[in-house]
């Protein structure tokens, strides 16, 4: 066999051995496979589906169904009773709230404090009189502010229900006021302009659809970043690195082998995430799988160099691990994967945009959801390629120096 063929085979052999090693470590393998599943399920349920259709007609289930809410009827008039009845009907038919009645605000407030309620709706004294007298009537809404997420959902949904009741009543009022002139449509009086959402992508989408590609990129890239580094530092400490370095193969073959095995590992996790996202959370792929793989490979390529440099300069595994985590954390939050970064201060955005993950996630998202070709993501890809070349070129001499000192 020629030397050139040999040189190509060595990284494959090193990668195969690494994967066999992973296969043998059953507990490690279990954790390795469970990690993306856990991550995906966690974020999948944490970021609920976003309703797409018009809020007055849609029947998309709420993210937090059947929250306990209490009604306090301080006003004893017929109108208050009717509105409260409508509120209960609408809430329960849409599984928004489970409505109970509290004798007074303080009793309800105690329940809210104890966490037994998520919101209180009070019909204050004079509610019915206002409506009868042609005045706007107010209901008082109290939510648990110590839980901002639920609080905003509850107050939003309560407002929605009341605006539904309110617009029904308004419709009747307008009809009554105008029953002589049939030419005017009550809707025109109440809401002369209405909006209707036209989705960018077909079908019912959830915010998870947007998160899944980001998480795929994140998992693959983190796998590469920490995987290559840990693999090298572990072999160094274990002593087996000496066995590789004392054999007649160039250091680049060792690096290539490690990169290959970690890429395979990252890809397995990435596709596990995608599979789970599709099967459980209804994420759909609109794009070309080949472009997806190319983007992920470039994402990996842009990071392995960094991983190798960090591990090479660190004196041992613990330090290497800490350095990698130091890089991973800001990257996770500043790359626009979990939160859009546009609300961050400019300098923080700059850090996020200096990290290749931002571009890998952006490109992957566009490919998976918007089904774009190479032309649209060319900008992202060029940045990833430049990153890959520079970091890998820097990594090889740093690795060689670190290994022979």
């Amino acid at each position, binding site marked *: 066999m020629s030397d050139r063929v040999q040189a190509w085979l*060595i990284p494959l052999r090193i990668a195969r051995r690494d994967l066999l*090693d992973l296969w043998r470590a059953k507990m490690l393998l279990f954790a390795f496979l469970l990690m993306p599943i856990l991550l995906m399920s966690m974020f999948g349920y944490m970021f609920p589906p976003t309703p797409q259709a018009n809020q007055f007609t849609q029947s998309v289930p709420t993210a937090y169904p059947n929250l306990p809410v209490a009604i306090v009827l301080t006003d004893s008039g017929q109108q208050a009773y009717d509105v409260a009845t409508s509120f209960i009907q609408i809430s329960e038919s849409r599984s928004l709230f489970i409505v109970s009645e509290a004798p007074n605000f303080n009793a309800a407030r105690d329940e809210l404090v104890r966490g037994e309620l998520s919101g209180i709706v009070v019909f204050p004294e004079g509610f019915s009189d206002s409506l009868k007298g042609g005045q706007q009537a107010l209901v008082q809404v109290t939510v648990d502010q110590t839980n901002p997420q639920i609080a905003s959902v509850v107050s939003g949904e309560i407002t929605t229900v009341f605006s539904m009741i309110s617009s029904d009543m308004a419709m009747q009022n307008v009809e009554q006021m105008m029953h002589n002139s049939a030419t005017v449509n009550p809707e025109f009086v109440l809401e002369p302009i209405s909006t209707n959402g036209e989705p960018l992508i077909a079908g019912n989408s959830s915010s998870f659809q947007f998160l899944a590609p980001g998480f795929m990129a994140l998992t693959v890239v983190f796998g590469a970043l920490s995987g290559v580094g840990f693999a090298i530092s572990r072999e160094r400490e*274990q*002593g*087996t690195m*000496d066995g590789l370095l*004392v*054999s*007649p193969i160039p250091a680049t073959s060792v690096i290539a082998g490690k990169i290959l095995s970690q890429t395979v590992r990252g890809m397995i996790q990435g596709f596990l995430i995608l599979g789970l996202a599709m099967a459980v959370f209804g994420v759909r792929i609109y794009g070309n799988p080949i472009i997806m793989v190319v983007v992920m490979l470039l994402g990996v390529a842009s990071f392995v160099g960094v991983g190798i440099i960090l591990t090479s300069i660190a*004196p041992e595994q613990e330090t290497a691990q800490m350095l990698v985590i130091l890089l991973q954390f800001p990257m996770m939050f500043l790359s626009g994967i979990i939160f859009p970064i546009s609300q961050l201060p400019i300098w923080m955005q700059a850090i996020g945009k200096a990290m290749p993950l931002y571009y890998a996630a952006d490109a992957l998202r566009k490919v998976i959801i918007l089904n774009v070709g190479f032309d649209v993501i060319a900008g992202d890809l060029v940045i990833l390629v430049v990153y890959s070349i520079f970091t890998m070129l820097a990594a090889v001499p740093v690795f060689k120096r670190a290994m022979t000192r």
Partner: protein
Amino acid sequence: MDLGVKEGEIYGFLGPNGAGKTTAIRMLCTLLTPSSGSARVAGFDIIHQSLEVRKKIGLVSEKLIMYPRLTARENLMFFGSLYGINQDSLTKRVDELLDLVQLTSFKDRVVGGYSSGMRQRLNVVRALLHDPEIIFLDEPTTALDPQSTRFVRDLVKELKGRGHTIVLTTHIMEEADELSDTISIIDHGKIIATATPQELKKKCDADNLLDVFLTLTGRQLRDSASDRIPMRRTVGRM
């Protein structure tokens, strides 16, 4: 430091802890780049022809060079494949070597489960896969029981008999005495004596090599410390 090893001999390399034995061996094996000086191993320069040097040498290092989750056979096949030996001859070679260290019946068991003696026997033959001209053995019998020690020492003699040149470091003076054709004693990074064991004993008027060693290097404990911890010392031997 200036040293020359003759072809086909066992060269004992002795010295107190921290004298620089392991450093010297790692440099000769191209695992460390010397800050100054040069050396040729099997006729090749260790800095500029490192790949050629590596084809000619086998290293039995202080730390075990074995993947604990792989079987003995898998380990040997893997390391052998790095030398570009074709599959058939490699398979034969591995079986031969396993037989040589009497591990054939354990060849499909993972190395992590081996006893220290078994691991070290395997560690020695790992260095022989490509039939190297020169074999470096860095403290090959440290922490082994008498049976395994005997076995490894006999193996070293047999390798010499097969024509290999051997460089051996050890702290066990009787081992150096028994095996070495030539002994160099190194202290503070310098070679202070080179001779056959017999000559050394005669010269120092001592019965055994331990006394020779203490006469030449003194009884003072060698304490030195650096602020930088070399990577290979951050964890112990497997």
